[in-house]
């Protein structure tokens, strides 16, 4: 049953194992409704696995997941509430966009092809030609239109722009923003390139090393992280009382990317704001040492 106040998605200790290897581990995230949430992480971090579990396509090995308070599974109620666009936008090659829209009408109780047709017309995508003759960007738009025609409450998109050229990418994200703007739609969109998503998303889920590292509003995340630069000192000493995400030592100075738990009191630090991309890269452990242990969630700064 869908609880009216249930978060768009909620997972606790979610894990998925393929043989001996974990594709996703200890994933605990909660995303409130009405957000466009970026799911980022390096290749193999478990983004696709998480989305497949949320879409009811694969069953978790451990932990629980819920979408709008419902456990993903084979009920018409759950399936009707989600829209899912798989990686590489699978479509029936020989069918046209119109055929797909007709097909959706057979496969769904709630189906609204009007907006989809209008969007395809506006983008001048030929709706009567086999989709195999369309460009990658056009296919992605068809896929998005199909997912939206279900009138889902939660839309799950797996790397929808990864294979698109910059123009098609921009058009796709514009369509997505437009769709998210009207109505009660929550979107989770994954990418290994944060840059693509920063403009359209207001919420972030960061998966690194198959574990959730960060989940929160982008504004909150930005507000909660700072770069501290000061005279060179021992990192263990320097990090005392701070949650250090990444530390870099130069010959003369020490640079720390920290998560704030309160004001920085030590006056010898020069405190500067930091961009989302730097924060994400720091959590993904790119270069430098990842000093912090796994963080599961971040709430609003109090």
């Amino acid at each position, binding site marked *: 049953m869908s609880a009216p106040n249930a978060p768009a998605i909620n997972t606790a200790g979610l894990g998925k194992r393929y043989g001996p290897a974990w594709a996703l581990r200890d994933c605990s995230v909660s995303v409130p409704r009405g957000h466009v949430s970026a799911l980022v992480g390096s290749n193999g971090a478990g983004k696709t696995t998480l989305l*497949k579990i949320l*879409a*009811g*396509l*694969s*069953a978790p090995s451990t932990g629980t997941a819920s979408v709008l308070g419902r456990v993903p599974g*084979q*009920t*018409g109620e759950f*399936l*009707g509430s*989600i*829209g*899912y666009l*798989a*990686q*590489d936008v*699978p*479509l*029936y*090659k*020989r*069918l046209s966009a119109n*055929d797909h829209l*007709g*097909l*959706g009408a*057979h*496969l*769904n*109780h*709630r*189906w609204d092809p009007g907006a989809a047709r209008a969007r395809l017309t506006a983008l001048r995508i030929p709706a009567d030609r086999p989709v195999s003759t369309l460009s990658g960007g056009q296919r992605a738009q068809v896929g998005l239109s*199909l997912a939206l025609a*279900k009138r889902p409450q939660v839309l799950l998109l797996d790397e929808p722009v990864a294979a698109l050229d910059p123009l098609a990418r921009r058009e796709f994200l514009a369509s997505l923003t437009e769709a998210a703007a009207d109505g009660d739609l929550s979107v989770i969109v994954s990418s290994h390139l944060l840059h693509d998503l920063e403009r359209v998303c207001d919420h972030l889920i960061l998966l690194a090393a198959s574990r959730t590292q960060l989940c929160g509003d982008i504004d909150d995340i930005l507000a909660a992280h700072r770069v501290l630069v000061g005279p060179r000192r021992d990192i263990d000493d320097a990090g005392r009382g701070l949650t250090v995400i990444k530390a870099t030592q130069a010959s003369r100075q020490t640079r720390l990317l920290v998560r704030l738990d309160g004001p920085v009191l030590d006056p010898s630090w020069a405190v500067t704001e930091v961009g989302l991309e730097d924060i994400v890269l720091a959590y993904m452990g790119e270069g430098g040492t990842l000093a912090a242990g796994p963080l599961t969630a971040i709430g609003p700064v109090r």
Partner: protein
Amino acid sequence: MNALVWRLHRNQAYVAGAALVALGVLLLITGIIMARDYHAFLASCAAARSCGQAGQLFAGDGAITTLVDATMAVPLLFGLFWGAPLLAREFEDGTHDLAWTQGVTRIRWLNHTILWPLLAAAGWGAALAALVSWWRGPQNAAGAPVRLATFTFDIQGIVPVAYTVFAVALGIAAGALLRRVLPAMAATFTVFTGLRFLIAEYARPHYLAPVSRSLPPFIGNAAPHGALVLSNATLGPDGRNYTAGLGFQQVPPACRGYGPQASGQQNSCLATHGFHTHILYQPASRFWAFQGIETGLFLVLAAALIAVAYRMILTRDA
């Protein structure tokens, strides 16, 4: 939902339909000619007392007979080109992700996806079997070739329906299991041909206990007309097989001394000394019983394979 299945598979349906129509036209023409010849022969043979030679009547129709025999492969073609790609293509193209995140549950999707191809395959198999059975009518009436024999049994009556359904079910299960079109086709081919051969060769002759008869020695083929002969041998009192003939030393002394002209008397003598022809056969009258048994067997196997496919689709991750 049904429209979806039709849209995705209509090309295969068109191809199968066209092939069936072409074969139908060919068989219709030749079949009518054969029936005419047969009736003309029956009208004349009674007077000439040569009706026993009816079996040779169609010996000259080589190419068309080969074509009809080749319809034995039709169920396999359905398995390869309808069954195997049905689910495997979805997995290979990733479209199962699309289908399984629509509003209908996986089990409903699967019901519709496999039901129509299975029914269509059964219909096609039935149409083909009816056509071939009709075409074979004059030959069956003439009693040659034997109706229970491989190549004759397998293409008429009701078994082609069961083979076709089984082949498609096998392809579907292989596709659900292997998730790739070519491996699924390879598995379908191997399992179908292997199982069909094993059953036709080793199981079918024993569906019912064969009729066993003991006759005078060296009598030749003494099975009733149209029977499927399993064994036909002249055995000695010691149980050994003497079909190839007796050496002088093996002939009981009492039966020696008959010349080549008196082999009939010698055989009577041998019979009194325990030599006899032992013959095992399935009478032609069991044709429909065997058809029923084999149809049941393949339909049960098909049901088991469909159950496997359901299990795979409903329990495995996308």
